[in-house]
């Protein structure tokens, strides 16, 4: 963590404590400013940060352009949908018999299952495309995302209703902590904490864990192998890196973030449908990573926050503005959002391809070959 390195230990601790205090207080501030809606937006932003961090492993660290990342989110969400709702017991007699009182699995089980299923999906995606060049690889990942969506949409027929098709799955149970389901308000003294507040803290913890995991991966042997692969795969192979396994690891690990975020999405909303897992969503997440700063964790978080807040910002400013100037809503906000999204992608690639907040580069280009210091006498090999 580059910016933390610049502070001394005492400043670092104070800095972290301040950050923690701010983050703890944030939902209250948001609620005061905009009610429950704004807290909800922050909750979604946290989920998107997790997604962006996961995609960053694939795109930012390993340099593999994945255009269908939303598939892993879908896998996690449907894992929750199937294991935490009455859907399977309602539709499959065998399961109804096995669980006469309903499944009611704990999320301590569902989250790892969602993550595992997503990782398996990641490996399934990665395996056939290991040898493909960048743009072909991207297209196959796009296809993968679409195929998952098509399957989710079509596996809802009578007789074998796995996903309930376009109708989606309802009644997904909430996460419960210490016996208290998070979708029921919690009273602390006089203060009532709604579901949005409670989930905020849960998501915040998950995001903090995600960030820690990402930093640890970045500064690990595998992380360096990913970056070597990204920079020059032939040189990486020449250094002995098994590029095939490293790519699969990127897909699998990146996917787990999507899977966890997906289960949380299911638990939070209580309802999921294939609509939420479209190609557009994959591109939104990709834009978060590209816009923020590919491969740079703080940048990616920034990108996720900006793009989650964008539609709300538009709704807040552009809508009343249009009313004022034109007397009516000429341009629907969602269309504007898509327009801006597209513009972002084009402009960033042309003018600032490393993103808004890229990793800082050390060293200036040396004009002359400065004389190197005299070579030391250490042996080259042990």
């Amino acid at each position, binding site marked *: 963590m580059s910016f933390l390195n610049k502070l001394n230990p005492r400043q670092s601790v104070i800095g972290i404590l301040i950050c923690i205090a701010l983050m703890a207080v944030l939902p209250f501030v948001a609620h005061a400013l905009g009610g429950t809606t704004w807290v909800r937006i922050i909750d979604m932003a946290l989920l998107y940060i997790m997604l962006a961090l996961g995609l960053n492993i694939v795109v930012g660290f390993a340099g593999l352009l994945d255009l269908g990342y939303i598939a892993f989110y879908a896998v996690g969400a449907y894992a929750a949908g199937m294991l935490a709702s009455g859907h399977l017991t309602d539709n499959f007699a065998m399961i109804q018999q096995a669980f006469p009182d309903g499944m009611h699995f704990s999320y301590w089980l569902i989250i790892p299952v969602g993550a595992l299923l997503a990782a398996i999906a990641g490996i399934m995606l990665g395996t056939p495309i290991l040898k493909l060049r960048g743009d072909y690889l991207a297209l196959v990942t796009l296809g993968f995302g679409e195929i998952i969506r098509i399957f989710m949409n079509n596996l809802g027929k009578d007789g074998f209703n796995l996903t309930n098709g376009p109708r989606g799955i309802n009644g997904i149970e909430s996460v419960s902590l210490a016996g208290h389901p998070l979708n029921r308000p919690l009273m602390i003294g006089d203060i009532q904490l709604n579901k949005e507040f409670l989930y905020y803290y849960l998501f915040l913890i998950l995001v903090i864990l995600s960030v820690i995991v990402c930093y640890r*991966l970045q500064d690990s042997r*595998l*992380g360096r192998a990913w970056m070597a692969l990204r920079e*020059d795969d032939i*040189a*990486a192979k020449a250094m002995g890196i098994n590029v095939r396994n490293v790519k699969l690891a990127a897909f699998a690990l990146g996917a787990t973030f999507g899977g966890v975020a997906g289960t949380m999405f299911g638990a939070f909303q209580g309802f999921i449908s294939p609509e939420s897992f479209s190609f557009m969503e994959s591109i939104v997440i990709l834009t978060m990573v590209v816009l923020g700063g590919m491969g740079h964790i703080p940048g990616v978080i920034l990108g996720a926050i900006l793009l989650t807040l964008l539609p709300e910002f538009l709704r807040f400013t552009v809508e009343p503005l249009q009313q004022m100037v034109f007397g009516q809503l000429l341009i629907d906000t969602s269309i504007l959002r898509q327009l801006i999204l597209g513009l972002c992608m084009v402009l960033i690639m042309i003018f600032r391809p490393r993103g808004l907040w890229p990793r800082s580069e050390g060293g200036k280009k040396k004009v002359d*070959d400065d004389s190197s210091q005299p070579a030391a006498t250490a042996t*080259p090999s042990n």
Partner: protein
Amino acid sequence: MSNETTMLSVKGVSKSFGGLKALSDVGIEVKKNTVYGLIGPNGAGKTTFFNVITGLYEPDSGEFLLEGKPYKPTAVHEVARAGIARTFQNIRLFGQMTAVENVMVGRHIRTKGGVLGSILGLKSVREEEKAIRERSMELLDYVGISRYHDYIARNLSYGHQRRLEIARALATEPKLLALDEPAAGMNATEKVELTKLLRKIGEDGVTILIIEHDVKLVMGLCDELTVLDYGKILAQGLPEEVRRNPKVIEAYLGGSH
């Protein structure tokens, strides 16, 4: 037995690309702890031969022995593990990574820190990381660029990039260091420094196989040479012998070139 003193034994390598025969029955014997040079005019097949040895190309025929044991590079990533590390004619560094990170990648195959251990922050993995970084800094120091350890690799000057590539290759603890035109683009002073570095590496127990155009550098550095021309061996042996070989003189100075 010659097997103990020979690091790399290559026999009968041929390679065609479509109709073009790039290599015809090429073989070399590189003895341990020597510097072996591969020279020849442009297009003679030197880099092709390198690529065959290091697994980038599959030869149409050829037998290889590394330290007396059969060596068959089927996948590029097995080559480094077997003990051959290389640099590239066009410098292939990991451009956006820092100098020290580049070298740390070289330590990949000699370390084993796993994913789970890294995520959990296990003590053993953290200690291995520390060791990797220390060793990498040592290697940067060895080649003389430790001052630039946190510079992004592509921001380094050309000469420093070449040194970095060598440091990265050394990080894999190679038995054989294969260098593809390490002196290309260097001025006279840089070449002298490079020769010193290569001699030091050789003295410290690494066998070196080097492709070079600079005949003077090669004659001063190498213990044995092979001259390639049009994919065939033109001459092989000690530098003085090769230099006086009339076929070699003709190939370099006149005749068909």
